[in-house]
């Protein structure tokens, strides 16, 4: 369980700020890809992709029914791997 008592009051270290900023940057990049593949390719940008045919239909349909789900999976595993690495880089991982 979280142990708040080990926390030093009144001070957020520079390292922690850097860690959090790096985390927020990774989240933002991931969410841009998340939105692009679902709301973008599968819905709003589908007309632009209509020329690319996939199995009897177009790429937008593939993204809507299959591609987006595969991208979501890749994103979550990428984030877990990247953040666990970032934890170690900043020395904030749990023992």
């Amino acid at each position, binding site marked *: 369980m979280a142990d708040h008592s080990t926390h*030093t*009051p009144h001070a957020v270290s520079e390292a922690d700020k850097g860690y959090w900023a790096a985390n927020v940057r990774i989240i933002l990049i991931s969410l841009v890809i998340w939105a692009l593949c679902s709301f973008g390719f599968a819905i709003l940008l589908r007309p632009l992709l209509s020329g690319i045919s996939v199995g009897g239909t177009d790429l937008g349909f593939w993204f809507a029914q299959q591609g987006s789900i595969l991208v979501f999976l890749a994103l979550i595993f990428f984030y877990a791997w990247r953040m666990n690495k970032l934890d170690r880089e900043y020395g904030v991982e749990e023992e």
Partner: protein
Amino acid sequence: MDQFTINLLFVGASFAIYIGIAIWARAGSTSEFYAAGRGVHPVTNGMATAADWMSAASFISMAGLIAFTGYDNSTYLMGWTGGYVLLALLLAPYLRKFGKFTVSEFIGDRFYSPTARLVAVIALLVASLTYVIGQMTGVGVAFGRFLEVSNTAGLLIGAVIVFAYAVFGGMKGVTYTQVAQYVVLIMAYTIPAVFISLQLTGNPVPGLGLFGEHQASGEPLLAKLDQIVSELGFNEYTAHHGDTFNMVLFTLSLMIGTAGLPHVIMRFFTVPKVADARWSAGWALVFIALLYLTAPAVGAMARLNITEQFWPNGTGAEAVSVETIATDPDYDWMGTWQQTGLLGWEDKNGDGRIQYYNDENPAMQERAAAEGWEGNELTNFNRDILVLANPEIANLPGWVVGLIAAGGIAAALSTAAGLLLAISSAVSHDLIKGQINPQISEKGELLSARIAMAVAIAVATYLGLNPPGFAAQTVALAFGLAAASIFPALMMGIFTKVNNKGAVAGMLSGLIVTVIYIFLHKGWFFIPDTNSFTDADPLLGTIKSTSFGAVGAAINFAVAFTVSKMTASIPQEIEELVESVRVPRGAGAAQDH
């Protein structure tokens, strides 16, 4: 052995497995009851989360909605998987670091306000109860079919079984029971799909078969499907027909709602480490994706099979005869489903044949006039029966039909029972003990939990008789409610320094506006015929009530930020709480680096 006996055997055997595992697992580890996920590998935890998460909506209802609408209902696929990205990136690791057991506890502590906790509990109750109504709809369909009784009788019998299952209780807390339920559920869903994909495309992987070749015609499967449905005057399967703005909002509502539902979030509180919370969300989605990558294939292939059954000699030739339906074993499924009242056909023009076509399409009306048809004669095809009827439609062996019965019931039961437990503990623990009567005895708490459960299931059963939509649509409303209330509060709790007053005002306004919008379209308290608008012609532009959750969430954020700006900033200890939640290890220890 007849089909009825096979179905009972499969359903009975699956129950025996769950109960057996529950007894075996409980004997050794009573103390681990609450911390169901602790010490459990992220892969196992992911599988259990997937069983918890995939309900009647995913299993019974979703593929049917996709089958009869096509591309436009891809929203369900993207919405219910895309939410896991939000969960994994924005919530799970931080809630795990916070280290309490329930969502309302986090909101109460982070916003240092019993009122915030109370509002969160109310929001959870409203969303969970709506969710249970959707489950009961699915329970009615599944039990109606497999006990070969009407939908109403099936629902009432199912309600009694769900209640018993939830009261028996603890089972839900045992991760390994959920793993067993997942295995039953995923086998039941994918095995028929593999058979059908092989029949139609020769490809054993349904997700690949969907984009493969239709062997009988040599054309791509989806091109063939587009062709035959448009020949009958229906919308092309792969084309976009509905309103784009509503489609975006609906997808977003489902995504945000997924990340705001308590019974899913709770699983990430109890994994051993923050790193595991990140992996667990990924593994949960792997196991969910197995079903979600299969569902669109199930939908498209079932639509093709059904259409071809009604037009055995092609859409230009004569339709299937009433006599064939009555005597040919290939059409037995129609007789069995007719008993439930969820499937109906009528030879309106008395020509001895059943013409299935879109009678609202002008071109088809011309053809109908020329051929002497008097309207679509497949008068009722409830979307929720498609997945369960699918193996029978494709003439698969009896054991496959029995397997899907067990799977459908596992999906509906596990989620319904889980939600009932969440409702009862919210009422007895958070509401009564936490707010109304802190001195209540343990016995009194238990009694109030049981009463809450009984009331919840009675209400859900009553409303399930006249549901506000098909199972997945009702469940989508529950997601909208969670999206408008819980998700914004959690996210602001971690990523911003919004204060107590902001959070309470935000949650209340998001929840109330969304509830009112839904009731205006679906009837007050979902009572039929009390609605002022319909989703075909909604109050605001093209925004359907099922899509309003995203708007509610935006209102929640906007109100919370505004109110928070105008009132006192958060105290020092809450500031420290936020900082500590953001870092896996305590910030003090990090300085040693």
